[in-house]
């Protein structure tokens, strides 16, 4: 299982591709894809790079963890949840709560 992620061009924020092909900030809204669908989604993402919505799209392996979907790699977990430590983690948590 994979999802497709990128950074938004205008502000650099981490975004995920949802089932309607939109780029959203919520990992939970990301479309979960098999290999063939991920390839097609990356092709579509390439077109979104061309129209300046996003940069650097790529596919991320996801797994089921404690009944919820999560990225397999630590790097991608941190990219989804934000920095794990210190003032930044607190700021990120506050922003997440406000969102």
């Amino acid at each position: 299982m994979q999802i497709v992620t990128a950074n938004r061009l205008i502000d650099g924020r981490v975004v995920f591709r949802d089932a309607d092909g939109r780029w959203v900030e919520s990992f939970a809204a990301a479309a979960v894809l098999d290999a063939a669908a991920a390839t097609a989604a990356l092709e579509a993402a390439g077109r979104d790079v061309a129209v300046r919505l996003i940069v650097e799209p790529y596919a991320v392996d996801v797994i089921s963890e404690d009944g919820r979907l999560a990225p397999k790699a630590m790097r991608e977990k941190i990219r989804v949840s934000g920095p794990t430590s210190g003032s930044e983690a607190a700021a990120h948590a506050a922003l997440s709560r406000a969102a």
Partner: protein
Amino acid sequence: MYVYDDFDHQFVRARVAQFRDQVARRLSGELTEEEFRPLRLQNGVYLQLHSYMLRVAIPYGTLSSRQLRKLAVIARKYDKGYGHFTTRQNIQFNWPALKDLPDILEELAEVEMHAIQTSGNCIRNVTADHFAGAAPDEIADPRPYAEILRQWSSLHPEFSHLPRKFKIAITGATTDRAAVRFHDVGFTMKKNDAGEIGFAVHAGGGLGRSPFVGFELRDFLPEADLLGYTEAILRVYNLYGRRDNKYKARIKILLHEVGRETIRDEVEAEFAQIRDTALKLPKADVARIAAQFAPPAFEALPEVSAIETAARAKDPAFDRWVAANVAPHKAAGYASVTLSLKPVGGVPGDATADEMEAIADLADAHAFGSLRISHRQNVVFPHVKRDDLPALFEGLVAAGLATANAGLVTDTITCPGLDFCALANARSIPIAQAISQRFADPVRQAEIGPLDVKISGCINACGHHHVGAIGILGVDRKGREFYQITLGGDAGVDARLSDSAGPGFWPDEVPGAVEIIVATYLALRTSRAETFLDAYARVGLAPFKAALASEEKAA
């Protein structure tokens, strides 16, 4: 400090206007990402794990209170209310939006700051001793020469597309606080027999995946030849440095592969061609720039401050802080003070906008409005009257910035690691936090004495683990974070790369491993006067490795 003239102002503003146009063209689609990437990197803009990151240059780590207040404004207005001071004396903002970056650069230009050459394959920010202009062991302030190098290297057309980045450091002191032997080029000021100022020149030092101690190219380079000789080094590097493999492109690899003596001969041959050209530094120009770094007018004071002495006797916390964070000064009755950005459990090198403003206020009140950023990721007030130390301490306590740990086990150098960096394999910050919590007791830290712990989240070694008394390197082991420990590194005059202490530890085991290293040191040191590195030089790796191995076996 150096004050911009009309040319400097125009130069930086022109650069801001140029970048504003480049960002607009990127957002309009006129520039592709491939076309835009090198342009944004030339202006210090990276795309990191979560967002863009802007690295702002703090030339040779020197900053005014006015500039720090502007950094606070930028942190609050365009970022998430904080900034991160780096191991190259710069500041990074972790969350700026691309659309805001031209405005940020314009605000920086108002206070004579920019992000030029903080990235890319060019000559980067020249770093210097953070006690420059204040240290008692200094021959002269190295910053005028750092400024001369900065002016010469800024947008230097011949050196804007080097094989790889190029880092220069300079110190004017006998104690090396600038790690000059671990830079592409390192200058150590010295005097010859005639009393003239010059430089010992080291080249090819560096950390990363291939660490090397710099090689001495020149025992004494006359002051007038600073630019000519540096240009000769850069020309030889630019000509022969590898461009086929970015991991072998630094000058250290060139020296290693071609031979140090061969490269030295090439540099000398090149220098012979250009030494008497326009690059010869006129005395008058050096004096003109040096005048801008003239120290403030110090009062004639006694060496010992009765006010400080009485406060130390009365307040153990103040006494500990002075012992750890206050360094001697060349002027009687003055001191240089380290403001630790390593509170227990904090993020090493981070400062919030509120903290920056508090620091700026305290600098105005007690330190002539003058600050430094150290490569150890702390703030330094270079000139403080010793009589003012109790009042300064009180202000720092109120601001939460009075951690008494400069140079001690919790004063870690720590890269951003996998929490922020797109290159990292493992997190660094949580390891630093766990170590600082484990060794939080200030009395115990003082008992242990000077001990550099340096943590990197990948082999690129931004956390300087190769030159840590205790170095910690995060790696990826089958998808999990894992940490290798090295011992005995020294970034100073006795430059030495650290030795591997064994296979390594999982994250939650690292503080315990550091505990074992510390306990082993305490058990074998001959006295409190024998520092960790002194003891290591005497006994070597073996007892530490054995102690760690028994822990690994037990685990």
